[in-house]
């Protein structure tokens, strides 16, 4: 896959080539009923990763999604050794794929300002997501992809 110059932070999906942000961009296309082909076919581990995200999204309870979309992170769930957003794909599934449009609850801005660990993870996912969206639009000519 084409890679971009990322900030030197821990990759959220260290086992996969495909990062969480990139995977979310492909899933968003799928949810729109379209198919976006990557520049190179996905590796088996990347397909498994995508499949896991699909099933997490399908099985996500409404109440769980609502909790993830709250404007603050649950108390005592973020520590410097285990930041709340580290490997928390559900948070990004909820904020990127479930919270449709710009009208839903805002992300936990205060927490992101307070917690550098979470902020860098968030930044990385958003960068990957945005650049992959751009790449898909450019290479697959998918129109109306982003709202």
């Amino acid at each position, binding site marked *: 896959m084409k890679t*971009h*110059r990322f*900030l*030197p932070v821990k990759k959220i999906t260290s086992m996969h080539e495909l990062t969480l942000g990139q995977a979310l961009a492909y899933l968003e296309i799928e949810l729109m009923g379209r198919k976006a082909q990557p520049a190179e076919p996905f590796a088996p581990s990347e397909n498994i990763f995508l499949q896991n995200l699909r099933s997490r999204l399908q099985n996500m309870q409404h109440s769980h999604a609502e909790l993830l979309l709250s404007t603050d992170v649950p108390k005592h769930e973020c520590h410097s050794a285990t930041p709340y957003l580290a490997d928390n794909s559900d948070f990004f599934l909820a*904020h*990127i794929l479930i*919270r*449709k*449009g*710009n*009208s839903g609850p*805002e*992300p936990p*801005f*205060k927490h*992101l*300002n*307070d917690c*550098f660990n979470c*902020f*860098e993870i968030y*930044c990385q996912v*958003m*960068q990957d*997501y*945005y650049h992959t*969206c751009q790449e898909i639009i450019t290479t697959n000519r998918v129109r109306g992809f*982003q*709202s």
Partner: protein
Amino acid sequence: MDQFVTPLTLENLLHHCTDRSSPHWEHSWQEFIGRYKKAIYNQVVSYCSSWRLPRLKFQFSEVVDDIVNDVVYYLCRDDFKTLKSYREHDNEKRFLAWLASICNRRSGSYLRRFFIETLSDKNIDDLHDSIAGLDFDMRQELYETVVANLRLSSGKKKQHKERDVHIFMLSLWSELSPTHIPSLPTMPPLSSGAIYRIIERLRESLKKNKKYFF
């Protein structure tokens, strides 16, 4: 009067350096500077080299000199409080490590201030490389300093203060420009013009208030 024999042991050196009434005070400081100036200087240069700020490369030697002076001032201030706090008088290696940690702290503090000054009059895009070149701890300290200053600058009761600070940090830290940020699905409905205005407003208030921060 005690005989002044050089080189002094570390214990004697620190003892005389921290006692202004000692007859050897001045000589001890000359010896201190002779012994440790190079170590202090090298440590500061090494720390500053990891910051690739656009303005820094043009003022590098002045900045290093300022920090070296600041380190010596820090050791001496409040009746040598910092130097007196060092306890392991029999271990030269540990003393050098302790001195290096002070150099790093003072350099970090100076450079974060320098960064905020640069931030208030340089384009944010020019600063991405400087941030990406820093190690994790330096980035974290810088992030926390900038956020704290932005919060102070935006006043107490500003509506959307946390959102605006986040937008500023996102555009500073990531490669997402103000034109990209409105397309992020997590963002509230704001135009790129509004994002530009938020960033400029915060930059202006940083500039206006920077004298209060450090």
